[in-house]
């Protein structure tokens, strides 16, 4: 589809409640391509925006299982197959001893999956993003709350949407360049 002239419209609010209210209204009005920015996590917003629960836990599970298997197989292969050695009369396949490193590799795999997964799903790193073009957006990491309706939204209309946002009595509405 044709690339819209701007990224979207950004409304700034003083209070988290106003933002929640705004998001609800926007969703009610049928807007779908919108995003809200807050200085701290706000559960209600996720609900309000109808964010689907993340697939992260699955990734973490896979990471853990992978790490664990790799760890145990490494130990079994080196001790039993690669170079079997009689160590203090213990059996070659000393599984009780192998449990410990296996646990550690499991945790390691899971943790790495969690962090990388989170970044990947969030599309980070992304040092450049259009919303940063709005100077006041800097306050989103302090005490202001922003709602951005993106131009790609089917209902988006540069003038109409601005008026719609004005009605939510924001402190300020600004256009977001690409």
């Amino acid at each position, binding site marked *: 589809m044709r690339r819209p002239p701007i990224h979207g419209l950004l409304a700034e609010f003083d209070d988290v409640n106003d933002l929640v209210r705004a998001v609800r209204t926007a969703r009610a009005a049928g807007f779908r391509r919108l995003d809200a920015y807050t200085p701290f996590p706000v559960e209600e917003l996720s609900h309000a925006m109808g964010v689907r629960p993340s697939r992260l836990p699955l990734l973490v599970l896979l990471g853990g299982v992978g790490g664990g298997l790799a760890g145990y197989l490494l130990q079994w292969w080196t001790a039993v197959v690669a170079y079997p*050695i*009689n*160590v*203090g*009369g*213990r*059996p070659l396949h000393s599984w009780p001893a192998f449990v410990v490193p296996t646990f550690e590799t499991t945790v390691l795999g899971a943790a790495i999956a969690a962090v990388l997964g989170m970044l990947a799903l969030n599309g980070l790193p992304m040092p450049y993003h259009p919303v940063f073009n709005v100077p006041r957006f800097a306050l989103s990491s302090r005490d202001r709350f922003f709602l951005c309706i993106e131009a790609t939204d089917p209902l988006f209309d540069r003038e109409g949407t601005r008026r719609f946002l004005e009605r939510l009595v924001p402190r300020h509405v600004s256009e977001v360049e690409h």
Partner: protein
Amino acid sequence: MTSAAAPIDLTALRARLAGRGGRALWRSLDELAESPAFLELLHEELPQHAAALARSVDRRQFLKLMAASLGLAGLAACARPPEDKIVPYVKQPEELVLGEPLFYATAVPLGGFAVGVLAESHEGRPTKLEGNPTHPASLGAIDPPTQATLLGLYDPERSQTITSAGKIQTWSGFLAAVRAALDAQRPRGGAGLHVLTETVTSPTLHAQLRALLAEFPQATWHQWEPAGRDAARAGALRAFGAPVETRYDLARADVVLALDADLFATGPSRLRYAREIAGRRRPGPGMSRLYAVESMPTTTGAVADHRLALAAADVEGFTRTVAAELGLAVAAAPAVAVAPHHAWVRALVDDLRAHRGACAVVPGEHQPPAVHALAHAINDALGNGGRTVIHTDAVEAAPTDQAASLRALVAAMRAGAVEVLLILGGNPVYAAPADLDFAGALGKVALRVHLSLHQDETSELCHWHLNAAHVLEAWSDARAHDGTVTILQPLIAPLYGGRSAHEVLAALTGPERPGHDVVREHWQGVHSGGGDFEAFWRRALNDGVVPDTALAPRTVALRPGWDVPTPAAPAAGLELVFRPDPYLIDGRFANNGWLQELPRPITKLTWDNAALLAPATAERLGVANGDVVEVAVGGRSAHAPVWVVPGHALDSVTVHLGYGRRRGGALATGVGFDAYALRTADAPSIARGAALRPTGRRHAFACTQDHQSMEGRALVRAATLAEWRAHPDFAHAFEETPPRDRTLYPPHAYEGYAWGMAIDLGACIGCNACALACQAENNVAVVGKEEVARGHEMHWLRVDRYFAGDLDAPAILHQPVPCMQCENAPCEVVCPVNATNHDGEGLNVMVYNRCVGTRYCSNNCPYKVRRFNFYLYSDWTTETLKMARNPDVTVRSRGVMEKCTYCVQRINRARIHAEEAGRRIADGELVTACQQACPTEAIVFGDVNDPTSRVARLKADPRNYALLGELNTRPRTTYLAAVRNPNPALAAEQRS
């Protein structure tokens, strides 16, 4: 075993040594190396450096050739292959198999008396001395000082040149000077010529000296040995009117009484006695009984069934009492400390009576002549002569009262009657009795010549010092305790061109002759009796004994008036007892790191001597371990640190000779205190009226065993003969080793060989021969006093010593502890890099090049037998010390754990030979170094899978038990509990 061939072509070898000197040292400076002119110059101007070159070369020659273990273990693993050279022979001696050691039979004389040895030689480097089974004084065993003679050969501080007034001189210069002096003597029959030697048993040397005296009829020959046998000689003279030699057949003695006699550590037959006694210590009907009366606890007292601590000076009184009880007419015993021990004496006497003709009373060498005479009388009265007590003609070539001989020399010197003095060996300036002031008198001699291995106290005061050839570098001969002669053959050309007494004497009186010719010609003369001399000579060299040279037993008769009591000395104050150090002897081995660091049998001290006294005495004097006291006797005094020895006689102080050297090497000097400073000619071993005065200063000892008690743990297990009869399995009353099937793990099967070891605690005398053999075999490093004190000593095999029972009369128990080679080794499980693990034959192997040094294995070893290279302990720079190493064992580098591996290098050699021949290793074919050295055959090693092997049979003995077996470590090394044979009549004395 022994190579039938003559030693490798020494002259050729010499040539190689001297020849390619330059290349080795100056490899970095090629232009120097290439110029032969430089070398010539070097040899003329700086003979000692030339020697140094030779030294480095022949190490290069052999070690490089063999690629012996010199690299930094571990580093090479990840490094590029090192640049290495191969230096083959030009003409290879045909008996030499590269990588295979050759063994040559020779002997090491100590105090004149020889112990036969087999010298192991790797491509021309002697690397180890082992006992010669065919030699009567060795029987295959060897004691620490004899073994350590090897290290003496490579001592980098050996004198390397002839010097005069501190300047390096040439041999020809020496000959010119001394020959001139001798010519001046000739017209006067050599009235001003005196020769001082140590005890001489060498037939060749004796012949040479006789020749010298024939040429100079007025000349005098003095013999003197600091730790000599004057008393025994004098005792024999009193008893029999002749200086007969007395030896004992303890294998036939049911009852033995040792009168302050350290049977196993001193005297020419020490190894033989140990073997004979041990042979009668195996539990059973044939078990003998040993009584020991002694002041300082010795290895003899430790194994004795009954030990009585008695001041050395009271032993004569004790002996008199025994003699009187036996009904001999002897001078009344002074009312001495014997009285309280009447029951003991009574029981002893009954026991002796009960075994007439099958008992032996052995006097200590440092006991006064009277005691020796008494002992002779008692043995005579008990009809032991010819049975357990054997008399022969003197073994010494010319038996003399050495104290008198030395006195005469000093008198002559002081009178200015000595113009030329040849000191062939020995170190009288250091060791002569203090009251003689030998050094002072020596100053009056016009020409003083000293032949010795080191630049010592005596060399310092002599005009000429000759660097002697080491016993392993020279031809000679010497007699054993029974007179058997051994031809001493060199293992290597003199490293520093040293000369033997034979060569010096020969050159002084006639044309120069190599020692080989001197000795050989002497024997050619002797042998003239007919037969093929060459065959005789080769056989003698090969066997290490000259056939039919043992002296025949002779009958002797007790001479009237033999009993002359020793004049009663002032009993006030303490008695001071002088003993040769167990390892440094009279100080001749003071620069020997192996011996300095070997823990003394009872005290476990290293690198020190001390004023040894009983706990009660220490308490009375208010002194403790490490207190420095001033020992004063007869107006002389010395400062000595105190060491308290449980079981030492009361009011008696024992000091060991051989320490406090002022000259003669970095290891020798500044270690311990000089006990000779207190020793006078008329009180050579026992001085009365001594006093100890604390100085308030402290001295730090390096003792390898801090804790003396077993803490009630069943470590060393022992029982009396009666108890053993009642419960042959008494050793298992203590612990319960879990049964093999009580485990979660499937067992590891050991097919083929399964190596194991059994150590008989009943036989062990704690002499440390095994520990030193292990050190020599396995390139174990010497670390020095400070490191020992910090718990960094490196001995793979240690002999634990525990005291049990009464502090004043304790039981003394020995326990050799090598690696136990546990089947369930705790050390292996915790090693993160598999540097220690099990091989297919059950060895707990230690892979030095894999070890990263976590020391976890040592922490987890309940026996604490692992040793760690906290620093770079192995000497990687001194060329001669590298020569001394066993090329079959990796030299460990810094940061690496090491331990006993049952001499795995010997196992591999034996296995390879067996497999090449397509057979199994036969039992007894493979022995470990410790087993080989042990005089009492207490250590037995072999294949426990073979039920017929000696070790398997011993492990089947109910006495066999595992140390700390309850830990279920399944040690392959186990112990046979000791069984004592105390006199039932002395139940109170019993120990168990």
